């Protein structure tokens, strides 16, 4: 169990505060937030690359706040991989072990094992500049995992890969985590990636943790307007606009809008064909409402349609 308690870290014009955050063992945790939300700082504090001004970090009950990076039992994969350009893949991966003064054959065994796991066994003699971006990343992951850390920290691991590769690697990461059985803390600004991977999602905004929970919890039951807006598409209208009582705002997802039936009438402003479904944007009393329709649905721009909202699933937010 990784626990952050009362952590505070201030930079010029920015403060990160985490009252209490717990990541259970063997969990794939994703820290999600826009840039400047403090997610990378959080990762670096867990790693030990930054020292918090106050608060403590506990790993399996041990306070590691004052421990140097290499004594924390964490592995880090940097966004740009940060391989040692002057060392072979083998030596790159072996570096953490060498510094633990491990016997040579034990080092060899472990490096070869992790290289096998990451499918880079035939690259061990090469230098980083001879590898593709994806291979370099695997080396970086191998280097982080070879010391068998309790926690693996991934800093935007998919951001340097092209779109096709990203999906493959995404799946690979999750499988890897399951195979190795480590706790993963993965930082990203991509909500889709976060939801796809996370057993546990930690949404951050402006230096604070907004909400912690499973992707489903966060998507369906966001505690704040920020989380609602940040995760997936959403519609947000004053309650009165939908003829409901109260001064709050009502939020609902496009899939909670049913087209062609209902009490509300709107005009089709625009539609996007997205393969598995169509996203229809409605003009309703001066508001725009996104709705999901089957791909075969036949609307034209300017059509007047009826629609309904599944108010059971709708959320209310204070203005």
């Amino acid at each position, binding site marked *: 169990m990784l626990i952050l308690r009362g952590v505070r870290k201030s930079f010029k014009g920015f403060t990160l505060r985490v009252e209490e955050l717990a990541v259970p063992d063997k969990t794939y945790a994703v820290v999600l937030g826009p840039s400047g939300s403090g997610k990378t700082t959080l990762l670096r504090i867990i790693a030990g690359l930054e020292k918090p001004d106050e608060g403590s970090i506990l790993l399996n009950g041990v306070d590691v706040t004052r421990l140097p990076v290499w004594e924390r039992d964490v592995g880090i994969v940097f966004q740009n991989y940060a391989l040692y350009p*002057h060392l072979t893949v083998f030596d790159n991966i072996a570096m953490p072990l060498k510094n633990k003064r491990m016997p040579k054959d034990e080092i060899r065994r472990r490096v070869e094992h992790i290289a096998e796991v990451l499918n880079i066994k035939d690259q061990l003699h090469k230098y980083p500049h001879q590898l593709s971006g994806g291979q370099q990343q695997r080396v970086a992951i191998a*280097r982080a995992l070879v010391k068998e850390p309790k926690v693996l920290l991934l800093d935007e691991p998919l951001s340097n890969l092209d779109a096709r590769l990203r999906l493959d690697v995404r799946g690979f990461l999750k499988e890897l985590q399951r195979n190795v059985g480590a706790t993963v803390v993965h930082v990203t600004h991509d909500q889709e990636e976060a939801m796809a991977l996370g057993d546990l999602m930690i949404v951050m905004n402006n230096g604070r943790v907004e909400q912690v929970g499973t992707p489903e919890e966060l998507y369906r039951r966001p505690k704040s307007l920020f989380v609602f807006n940040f995760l997936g598409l959403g519609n947000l209208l004053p309650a009165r606009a939908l003829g409901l009582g109260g001064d709050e705002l009502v939020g609902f997802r496009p899939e909670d809008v049913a087209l062609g039936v209902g009490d509300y009438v709107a005009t089709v402003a625009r539609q996007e064909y997205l393969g598995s479904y169509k996203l229809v944007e409605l003009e309703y009393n001066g508001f725009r409402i996104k709705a999901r329709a089957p791909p075969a649905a036949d609307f034209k721009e300017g059509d007047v349609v009826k629609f309904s909202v599944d108010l059971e699933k709708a959320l209310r937010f204070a203005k």
Partner: protein
Amino acid sequence: MKDKQILFLALPAVVYLLAFTLYPIASNLALSFYERTYEGHLRWVGLGNYVWLFEKDPYGPLIVGNTIVYTLATPSIAIAMAIPTALALRRLGGKWLLPIMIPAFIPPVTAAMAWYLLLNPLYGLGYYLLSWGLIKANPISSIWAIVLVDVWRAFPTAVLIIYSGLRAIPKSVEEAALADGLAGPRKFLAVDLPLISPQILTAFVLTALTGFFTFDPIYIGTAQVGPRLLDNLAYYSYEAFASGEFGYSATLIVIMTLIGTALSLAYMKALSARTFVKLPLPSWMPRREVPKAIHALVLSAALIFVAVPFVWLFLISVKPPDEIIQVPPSVLPSRLALDNYIQALTNGLPFLLISLYVSIINTVLTIILAAATAYQMRIHGFGGDKLMAYILYLMSTPTLIYIVPLYLLLSKLKVLDTLWALVLTYPIMTIPYGIWILYNYYSGFNRQVEEAALADGMSRIKAFVKVVLPLSRNGMAVAGLYAFLFSWGALIFPLAFTQTPYNLGKPLSFSGAQTFSIYIGMLMSPVTLSYGQVAAAGIVSIIPPLIYLMAVRRSLEKIWGAG
């Protein structure tokens, strides 16, 4: 692509360089087969001069040996000192780089003179070193005094290059090292040192060149030691030139040219191989970060090393005449006396004027010619690798090698001992450096700027003048700084090509063109030695480069990456 306008911009500097360097190199070779007779004629001796150097000259082996010592000891010591200093700079902040750089910006003759005054066994701190028993013999009587001065001059360059190498290590690699359990000396050995090994190699070669060509410290120091004992090939060949033995001088120059060529070829080869040096990592190597206090100590020591000669020079320069030759020497003057400055400036005025003229003219010339050529080389591939290799080659060969043929050429042009002799020849030293600095500067330059200007209907030349040049300010400021420094501190060319001070009676004739460096050298000659005046002149000689340095500090720090 390579249209006429590109040639128009790129060729002037190239043509100049080829004309003023290829011909002398060939001419030296021819001259090295002759010797001067009793009657003053040249006589063919075949390989006689070469045989003499290696078989008969009682100082031949010593001089070759000295050259090797200077060439190897200077970079080794400078780099051994520069690495901890660069590490301390990385830890404590780049703002300390500028003060450390100062020795690189003052005339070499001033640097040598300042150290010799400082170490003088009777009137300098050398007296105390001797009387406290720290040293046994005259500290300025050994070749290590030359090495000391050269280390002092080369140290800043070594620090700069190594520091820039350290800064170029990605932050994430540093953090990865931390995660892998590398810190302090352990991380230095496993990560920093291999990654900065190309910079160390560059620093080694550049500072080795300082040692290889060293001239000014020998010029200043030789009176304390005995003839030939300090000489390297460069100085010995100048001595031969100065005593009229053109053939022997050319012989020594040919040998020096060969060694210089080999050095620069080896360097280029080593750099292009891009190998990283790896050292074994002993397991006892501590992995804790070195305490900040130690870094502060290292940096302070470096700053003191840099500052001490200046401080002593200044103290002497304000001492009244009778206190200067006082034994034991007083550290602080009893009163501030300006006599030395008044004398140095009155007597030195013609020299000062010439130095300012030629430095300013040559700086402007160099900036314009070098920028035009460097831009075309970098952006349009003008001249290709071959031209760049030749430029690097010129940088790695001493300007001394041109003096004999150029001297004869200038005398044919009837411009010896005039300002024009210097204006014509100084670009030989400065244009290669200018091109090199700007070539590197333009590597980060967006060529679309020029293309946009062409699209807007400008000619290439106009685009270069109106668009590229204004955007090259930082690079030109730095190239100009180096051009100014070389011009201001030059000693060999003015020694060889001028004989009299600027004739202030006929200022517009610009005849008589000895420079301020010569004035300082003159004041250090045993026959005319005046410690107070020479110290004051030294301080004066430091001022213009420092003014320039301060003026372009921002540009420089941008290029150094220390800001």
